[in-house]
């Protein structure tokens, strides 16, 4: 995309229009969330829950109706909007009426199941990713950067458990189009678990990142998927530098080791990457 010279013949703006539609849906979902939080007193919780539920149902119904008709560019995103509104609705209902009491995180599990069913029914990778995200949330893995810095061993173990659950799901999955989504989630969750353990001074984290790194490189070569090779080196770099600065308390030595680690990491990826490209070329 970035390297092409301007073309004067056929020029497809399909990807750009899809991006517009995706951005629009995310804005609507965000606006709906804010609307809920601001109108609780004015409209009343039951009405809000009902409105969100009806809106989500309408989106699902539209997507179902469109299944037997010519596909349009926004179909996937209407379904995504329905799933996001449903997530907001379920979260709101649980927050308002405490249906699950102390077990409130279970509403994430409910969402994971509902989104998974919808993903298979509608053949939607976007909704599948929401399902896996909800599963991770149920296990206590938050989606923010602070999680890395406030990490503890428990969160690391939870990430590893989540990776294992998604791996089992991937093994029993018969819908091949979803395999890629599962693979990327498994890789990130597993590496994240290792890095979080390491952040909490657990040496086994370094060992796990190394093991997952070898596995990711092997999978990358086997399936000609470069992303896994880069994941391995990327998380390896985070683990190495984190390990150095946790255990070396002399700044000069820490900086020297950081330089050495960078040189080794760059050389490692250059060698792996070159071999990867050689094997990829017929």
């Amino acid at each position, binding site marked *: 995309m970035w390297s092409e010279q*301007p073309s004067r013949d056929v020029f497809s703006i399909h*990807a750009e229009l899809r991006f517009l539609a995706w951005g*629009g849906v995310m804005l609507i979902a965000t606006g709906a969330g804010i*609307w809920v939080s601001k109108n609780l007193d004015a409209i009343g919780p039951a009405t809000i829950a009902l409105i969100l539920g009806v809106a989500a149902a309408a989106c699902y119904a539209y997507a179902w109706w469109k299944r037997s008709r010519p596909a349009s560019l926004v179909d996937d995103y209407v379904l995504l909007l329905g799933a996001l509104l449903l997530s907001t609705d379920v979260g709101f209902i649980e927050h308002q009426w405490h249906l699950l009491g102390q077990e409130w995180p279970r509403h994430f599990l409910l969402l994971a199941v509902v989104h998974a069913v919808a993903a298979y029914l509608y053949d939607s990778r976007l909704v599948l990713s929401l399902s896996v995200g909800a599963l991770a949330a149920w296990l206590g893995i*938050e*989606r923010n950067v602070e999680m890395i810095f406030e990490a503890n061993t428990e969160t690391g173990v939870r990430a590893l458990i989540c990776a294992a659950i998604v791996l089992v799901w991937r093994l029993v999955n018969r819908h091949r189009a979803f395999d890629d989504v599962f693979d990327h989630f498994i890789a990130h969750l597993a590496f994240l678990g290792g890095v979080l353990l390491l952040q909490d001074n657990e040496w086994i984290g370094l060992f796990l990142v190394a093991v997952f790194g070898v596995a990711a490189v092997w999978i990358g070569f086997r399936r000609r998927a470069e992303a896994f090779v880069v994941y391995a080196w990327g998380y390896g770099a985070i683990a190495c530098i984190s390990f150095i600065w946790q255990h070396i308390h002399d700044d000069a030595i820490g900086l020297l080791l950081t330089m050495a680690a960078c040189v080794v990491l760059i050389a490692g990826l*250059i060698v792996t990457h070159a071999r990867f490209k050689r094997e990829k070329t017929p």
Partner: protein
Amino acid sequence: MKRSSPLAYAFFFVVTLIGVGALFFFCRELHLPKGWITAVLALATAEWLIRRHGFESTGVESALWLGGLFAFIAGLPSTGKPESILVFAAAAAIAGWRVRNPWFGALAVVLVLFYLREKNVSAQMLAAAAQGIAIGAALLRGRTWRLASTDRLFGAIAIAAPLPAIDFWSERLALDIGGIYLLGGAIVLGIALRLRDRMLLIAGAISVVMAALDLHKLFDYRVEGKLVAAGVALVAISLLVSRALRGRTRGIVVTPAAEGKYQEAVTLAATVFAQPQHAPASDSGRFEGGGGDAGGGGATDSF
């Protein structure tokens, strides 16, 4: 000749910059001339990799050139004058010229515009200059250049130039600046469609979005209403344009093209991270479906 994919490029670039930074601070710890040593070692290594090993667009040589020059400038005694921004801009331009990286050239333009802002050039002048540069770069992209990197340089400048010249976080409405951005964005979008150019489409869209971020202050509605309205407008535009172009086989079409290597992965990741996060029921605070800063089990801090 060695080149990297975008993902590998990002890894090489970041890790090399970390390495250059570590060298700079290591020299400082040892009370050595940090700027000189870092610049000499980084540039020598970059040239060795380029000349002896054919490195080109790997991310390593780019980061060595940019990091080396920036480290050299950072090592000089600082007087705190805004003119130092121009020195960094010159360094970015030199590094960009040497490694043929269009984004370094764009960075140089952005830094010059930041310098003008520091020199208290009026916001209207700055906005006009930014849009003038973007339009000029868009027009220059229409020429056929001998080197593809020169062509990409103008695309990168058209994308980056509008970024520093508008203070869209300010609560104050600046109608004239929003208007300049809207007009500039529309012109760049027109050139993009005429040239069938994706980089310019992005450049025009950025200016229009920035104009919208300013001009939305004209309407005295609640933020959630504006978000929903903007979202509906985007979906409607997408739908209407796709309907209008349906069935076309020449010129601008909506035929599904093969998705970029990382396009779907990025969309999935962005969806997972951008989806609303929910409150724990045990907390009596307000529900924030629009995205609290906690979402998992046991999270209690923002509700």
